[in-house]
C-alpha cells in the first residue's frame, strides 16, 4: 500500500452511471476510498451493506465515501440496485486496475484489488491507510470513524 503522508495519486474513473469522477472533484473535502475485490461477492456485499448503514454519519463528518473495484459500470449499477445502496462505485475496468495499482492495492495473482481503505484529507494528502490481511476480512466501519476523528 502507498504510504500515509504522501499526496494521493490522481484518478479519473467512470462511476456506476458512466460519469467521470476525479480526485480533483473532492478538493476541500475529506474522501474515503474503499478498494474492494468484486461486485456481488459475498464478503463485498457484507462490507458495502454495513458501510451503507453508516453513510449518513460519514457524510455528517464532512467526508465522501467511494467504492472502487475492477468491475464495469454496468456491474456496478446492477450491484447498487441489488443492494439498494447509495455509495457511488467507480469502475477501474480499463486499463484494468490502473488506479488501484497506483494506490498499491492491486493483487496481481487474482486480478483484483485487495480490501483496503484510504482517507484523503481536504488538501489531497493520504492521512490513513488500511489494508486487510486478506480479501476475506472486512474492515469495520469503526476504523473509518476513528480515522476521521484523528484527522479533525
Amino acid at each position, binding site marked *: 500500500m502507498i504510504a500515509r503522508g504522501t499526496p494521493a495519486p490522481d484518478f479519473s474513473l467512470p462511476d456506476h452511471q458512466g460519469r467521470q469522477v476525479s480526485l480533483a472533484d473532492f478538493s476541500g473535502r475529506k474522501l474515503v476510498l474503499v478498494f474492494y475485490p468484486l461486485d456481488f461477492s459475498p464478503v463485498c*456485499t*457484507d*462490507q*458495502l*451493506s*454495513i458501510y*451503507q*448503514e*453508516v453513510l449518513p454519519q460519514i457524510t455528517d463528518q464532512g467526508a465522501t465515501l467511494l467504492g472502487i473495484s475492477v468491475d464495469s459500470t454496468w456491474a456496478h449499477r446492477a450491484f447498487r440496485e441489488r*443492494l*439498494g*445502496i447509495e455509495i457511488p462505485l467507480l469502475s477501474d475496468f480499463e486499463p484494468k486496475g490502473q488506479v488501484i495499482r497506483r494506490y498499491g492495492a492491486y493483487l496481481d495473482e487474482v486480478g483484483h484489488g485487495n480490501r483496503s481503505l484510504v482517507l484523503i484529507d481536504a488538501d489531497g494528502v493520504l492521512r490513513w491507510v488500511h489494508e486487510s490481511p486478506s480479501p476475506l476480512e*472486512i*474492515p*469495520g*466501519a*469503526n*476504523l473509518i*470513524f476513528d480515522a476521521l476523528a484523528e484527522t479533525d
Partner: protein
Amino acid sequence: MPPVGPEDHVRGEGPEAIAYLDLGCPHCAATWMMIAELPLRLVFRHFPVASKHPRAPALHAAVESAASQGGEHAFWALADSIYRDQGRVDDPHLWERVRGLGLELERFERERRATPVAERVRSDFEGGIRAGITGTPAAFVGGQAVRGDLAASLRGLT
C-alpha cells in the same frame, strides 16, 4: 463495545454472551436455533442491515414495540417466533403473533413506528459498529469477539 446495562434485553443464567443479531438474517436464525436454549446469560442487541435484509428494520422495531408493551417476556417470545418462522414475517403475520402474545394490536402498531423504538434499535446498531461488527450473527464473550463457529463457541461455554 457498550457494557451491558439496564436497557439491554437479557435472558437466562450462566456465562454471559452478548449477541448482535439481525432478525431478517437467515444465518442468525440458524444460529439462534442452536444457542437459544443454551444455559447462557444471553444479551440480545439489534443489528439490522437493511440493504441485505430489507425487512429487518421492521422486525427489530416490532420486537422493541412488543417489549414496550409486554416487557421482556414479550420481547423474547416475539424474537423466538420470528426466528423459528422466517417465511412469515409480513405485517399480517406479525399481527397474528402479537395477538397470540396477548398484546394490544393498536398500541403495538403505534409504538413500533414511534421514534423511541427506532432510536433504541439504532443505539444498539451504532454500539455494534463501534465494536467493529461487520456482519451477523456476531457475539462477544468477556469483551472479546467470538471467532469462527459462533454456536460451537457458545456451546463450549456451557
